[in-house]
């Protein structure tokens, strides 16, 4: 790990890393024992944003990052989640065309390999899943939908996701799940947290 520090105002530093795996490793380490004054750890595609408050300052936070030693062994806190999916999404046929697979092969590709939550964004509980089958890399739709229902299972730009709540969205919808991935009354409210391993399984339409 060879982090590059980019200062982000007077109360945050953006730590740039080699990729999602390094970001998650550093996030894990710092989350287990946050440096003094750190208020937020925000993993993203290639960066970890570390927000802090006085009396913490850049220097202290940067040396804490440099001295972070990853815990031995894989993380278990974020857990493993199985997501049951009915694969009847409105964009399933388009995804098949774009990937050169049949619809059945798209489903098999999506369920065949495990995914990992890399980070959240866009909306509360909206998790960007990486890994999975590289053949499922498709671009976003050219036109966003005004309404995507909660539980929609989608693909875009190499990520997969489950829409936590009804919202606008431009990802390609391949299916839906009844599994609630967001519940404000729960602690934590998000089921899919950075580092979690996710497996999609096909269920018959019900």
């Amino acid at each position: 790990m060879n982090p590059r520090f980019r200062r982000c105002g007077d109360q945050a530093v953006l730590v740039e890393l080699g990729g999602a795996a390094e970001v998650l490793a550093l996030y894990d380490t710092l989350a287990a024992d946050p440096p003094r004054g750190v208020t937020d750890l925000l993993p993203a595609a290639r960066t970890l944003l570390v927000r802090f408050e006085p009396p913490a300052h850049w220097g202290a936070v940067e040396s804490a990052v440099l001295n972070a030693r990853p815990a031995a062994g894989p993380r278990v806190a974020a857990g493993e989640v199985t997501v049951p999916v009915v694969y009847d999404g409105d964009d399933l046929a388009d995804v098949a065309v774009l990937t050169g697979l049949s619809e059945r092969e798209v489903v098999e590709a999506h369920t065949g390999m495990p995914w990992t939550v890399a980070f959240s964004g866009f909306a509360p509980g909206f998790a960007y899943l990486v890994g999975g089958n590289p053949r499922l890399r498709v671009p976003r739709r050219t036109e966003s939908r005004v309404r995507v229902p909660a539980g929609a299972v989608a693909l875009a730009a190499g990520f997969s996701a489950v829409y936590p709540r009804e919202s606008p969205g431009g990802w390609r919808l391949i299916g839906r799940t009844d599994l609630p991935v967001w519940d404000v009354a729960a602690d934590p409210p998000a089921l899919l947290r950075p580092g979690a391993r996710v497996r999609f399984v096909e269920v018959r339409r019900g």
Partner: protein
Amino acid sequence: MGEAARLLEVVATGPMASVQDLGRPGRGDLGVGRSGAADRGSLRLANRLLANPEGAAALEVTLGGLAVRAHGDLLIALSGAPCRATVVDASGRARDIGHHAVERLPDGATLRLGVPRCGLRTYVAVRGGLDVPVVLGSRATDFMAGLGPELPRPGTLLPVGPPPGRFPGVDLAPVAEPRDDVPLLAVLPGPRDDWFTSGALRALCAEPYEVTADSNRVGIRLRGPVLERVRDGELPPEGMVPGALQVPPSGQPTLFLADHPVTGGYPVIAVVRTRDVDRAAQVRPGQRVRFRLSPH
């Protein structure tokens, strides 16, 4: 005498009012932004005057126009954008009250706010705080994420919490009015200043930017010198902070405020210093701001 419920009844909201506290820190990794008062210093000040915890929930009122009626005897304090504030008691007697002062709002009395003389957001804090339900550790309404209480409407009853054990120590806090027509906001370069031409930071700080009407608690859209990039394309998403000056392909920056998106895909050329983010939150559409590079 029994303890009747103490409430603040909303009679009118003006252009927009919302309940805010200091928000939901620590949940960015779940896609939940901090939100909370856009001008955090003003919210803190009003609460300190009332001996509330600094982060007690209060009303954030945009461009005045609020009217609220007390159910039970209340103590209130106003902060933020200064405006005429009138208390009309149950018998119809009216008196004007000051900002940054501990004031009584007796049972049945109505508080009315005029349009601010300057600034945008006025805070109305109540001793005991507004006791609306807590969502993920906060009573703030996050417009971007759709979290927290619904916006108050005429008829909304806002419960007031039990008064804290401590008593107000001062009646008045002297605060200078933010009279500068063109506020000067200090920025620190980065995190993505290397995505821009070497002249872009200079351009940012050379001429004033106008605050457009397309501004809200998420951010302020600015119009002014174009900030030219040397790199095309989108960034992979990365974490954002309040005060970030994010630059879309148009080259016109957006200054993020309390309800900014948790992650963004456009480069941030510079970030406004924390204390000046509060001042930015008080700038009105049509007003201009200037930026200056801040030494570390």
